């Protein structure tokens, strides 16, 4: 049987059994790795399956999950966004800063607007000026981080005395029917991203640009306009991620999100997305985020110190990319 389009694996297909099977086939490796890691985790630590730890896990993955959705969109078009961590910091420090003298709702809105603006600038330079996204977002990474430090004078902004602090605390730590608010938000975002990719014109065009931008262009579609969209959305999602992180930590810190680009790229690639674009799914990225999140979680449970964790993460990420590259090569 010829290969099917993985993005078409949906419940509304005529042959649901076939769709499920072909979904499992495309996602087989990441799913197997996830299952293996869960098995290891449950063997290593008896508390892994405890309600408190599962809740904790779902909270811990929030930031990377939200940011990975943006990263997925960008990588699907064949690009890359290295500025995600810095924009997360931007959103965090600005929302905290703005809460000093305005209602929390407005502060959140403004912080989202600013992070989206950063994404828009990146998108414009990549798509209209046609500079390699690697360079543009590398520059943006430094620029945005610089702003975060400058705005805070490199001291984290704590909002305890400000009006609206209660809302932020609730957002960061309350649960509904045992599910953390943070988890509800990221679940909603992943569903929205999946729906967008599957059912909207934007989603179809994003996939196709990654597959062959020239073919899209010749079809009479304004490729440069659509090429900017994933960077804008990535900016927005980093904003959301930054605010959620700040809500959880209780501060807006200029250092937050450092090294996050590595986590997000790794999650997306581990989830079966092709570095060259055009191939990849939301569900794959979710699996990727969980694989990384659970590894982190176990190491925490085992009281492994932060620095060895960093070392291990580097090894995992590069291994994942090596595997992904081998996979892409064997396909072509």
């Amino acid at each position, binding site marked *: *049987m*010829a*290969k*099917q*389009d993985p*993005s*078409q694996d949906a419940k*509304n*297909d005529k042959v649901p059994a076939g769709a499920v099977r072909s979904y499992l086939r495309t996602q087989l490796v990441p799913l197997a790795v996830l299952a293996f890691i869960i098995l290891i985790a449950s063997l290593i630590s008896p508390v892994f399956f405890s309600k408190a730890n599962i809740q904790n896990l779902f909270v811990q993955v929030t930031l990377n999950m939200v940011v990975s959705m943006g990263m997925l969109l960008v990588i699907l078009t064949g690009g890359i966004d290295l500025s995600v961590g810095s924009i997360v910091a931007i959103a965090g420090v600005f929302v905290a800063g703005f809460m000093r003298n305005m209602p929390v709702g407005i502060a959140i809105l403004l912080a989202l607007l600013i992070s989206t603006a950063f994404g828009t600038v990146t998108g414009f330079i990549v798509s209209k000026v046609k500079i390699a996204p690697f360079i543009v977002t590398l520059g943006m990474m430094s620029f945005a981080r610089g702003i975060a430090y400058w705005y805070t004078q490199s001291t984290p902004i704590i909002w305890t005395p400000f009006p609206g602090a209660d809302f932020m605390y609730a957002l960061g730590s309350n649960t509904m029917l045992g599910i953390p608010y943070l988890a509800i938000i990221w679940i909603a975002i992943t569903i929205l991203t999946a729906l967008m990719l599957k*059912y*909207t*014109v*934007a989603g*179809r*065009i994003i*996939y*196709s640009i990654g*597959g*062959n931008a*020239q*073919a*899209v*262009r*010749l*079809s*009479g*579609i*304004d490729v440069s306009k659509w090429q900017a969209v994933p960077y804008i959305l990535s900016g927005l999602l980093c904003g959301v991620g930054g605010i959620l992180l700040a809500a959880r930590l209780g501060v807006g810190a200029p250092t937050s999100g450092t090294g996050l680009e590595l986590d997000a790229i790794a999650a997306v690639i581990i989830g079966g997305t*092709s570095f060259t674009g*055009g*191939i990849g799914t939301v569900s794959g990225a979710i699996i990727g985020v969980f694989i990384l999140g659970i590894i982190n979680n176990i190491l925490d449970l085992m009281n492994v110190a932060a620095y060895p964790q960093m070392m291990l993460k580097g090894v995992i990420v590069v291994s994942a990319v090596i595997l992904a590259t081998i996979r892409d090569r064997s396909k072509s």
Partner: protein
Amino acid sequence: MTEDDVMPILELRGIDKHFSSVHALKSVSLKIGRGETIALVGENGAGKSTLMKILTGVYEKDKGDILIEGKKHNITSPLYAKKIGIGQVYQQAELIPELTAAENILIGEMGFSRKGLVNWKELKKRACAFIEKYQLSIDPDEKIKNMSVANRQLVSIVKVLQRNPKILIFDEPTAVFSNLEVSLLMSLIDQLKRDQITIIYISHRLEEVFKVADRIAIMRDGYLVSVIDNVNVKKEDLIQQMLGRKSSSMFPEKANLTSEEKILEVRNLSSEKIKNVSFSLRQGEILGIAGLVGSGRTELARAVYGLDRIKAGGIYIDGKEVKIRSPVDAVKHGLFLAPEDRRGEGLVLVRSIKNNIILSNFRSISRHGVCHTKSENSATQALKDKLSIKADSIHTLVGNLSGGNQQKVIIAKALLASPRILIFDEPTQGIDVGAKSEIYALLTKMREEGMSIIFISSEIEELQGICTRIIVMRNGAITGEVESGLEDGEKILNLMYRS
């Protein structure tokens, strides 16, 4: 020299090659003597390049033997071909623009000194020796990126020569050359002949063939139809042998044109690659554009479609001038281009049939930016059935389809876009005969339904078969137009080859 002389340096015995359903080479046998220059001619798709790719190890033959100096060789890779002394001159692709001529020539054999450093002096001396030997006007220190196309070609040739090949293959070496540059190459080849290097020369430019070849081998439809000594050969005879007998049953019957109305007019259009081109397209006709590779056919289509910048001239649709700066504008004005390079420019190979087709017209299957799954499935399913695209379902990846079926996906794209003017660049390139005739029938049907079509092709036969009118291009300009007496292929060929 004839083939009965001593032992041939190269002997091909019954070479056969299939590509899925296409029988590309049919029991080709040929002997070439040492120091001989043999020209290989034939229409596009006759099998010339396939034969050469088998010799250079790019493809593996299905059947037959290759003997070099009487010894049987199974050429399994380009590296193997290189080792046994078969060299091919490629068009620039092998050169590195940032390096100098000397560095490029010897990059494969860069001798490293004991300290692991490149010995530049030695390198340059060796390169210079080669350049001097063949009296070339190349500066060994000049970077490739600053060189003219012809000089780059010369560098590629020297690069192959320094490996001392026994057999040297030129595949369309002059496609992008001016006449002066051609004569430069000719004198280089003369010298190679004096050095007793065996040369296989493929070219569409028959004048060159007459100039360089000792013998001329003619290929058609995968057969080697004849090998003639290059004495008193008439161009007309050669062309006739290249074309062979016509198989008119391939083509649907032509209906007469009903309209004289000009839907598209191009006036004095110039771009980087085309010069002062004027023509018009009538409502409901299939206008053919003939010309060799590099004659400006594709570039004309690109200029009209807003892909190449227009320097002068104008495009008129329904008598009104329109500004087309991008494909977006072109599509807005009712044009649609099905490009020559279908895998590189026409299709998204990693996406499904459905997702490729709908790219051309999202408006028809979406509302407020949301795709309507039912209507996109039914629309693409209907097109798949109508064009009998052979695939499991509309969700099959386009990359898994055969060439003919991929081409049909492009036609389906065009049908969904329902343009008033369709530009089709080499739609039948590399697809088998059956799919070809299906595509001819489809184009004729689209024309009958009122679409106006520009049909670009290197195959004169198919242009004659389905076009109502043919314009011929050469060197970026139109050299003539043929409307009545389309059967006269030689007239068209003469316009294509005339220098």
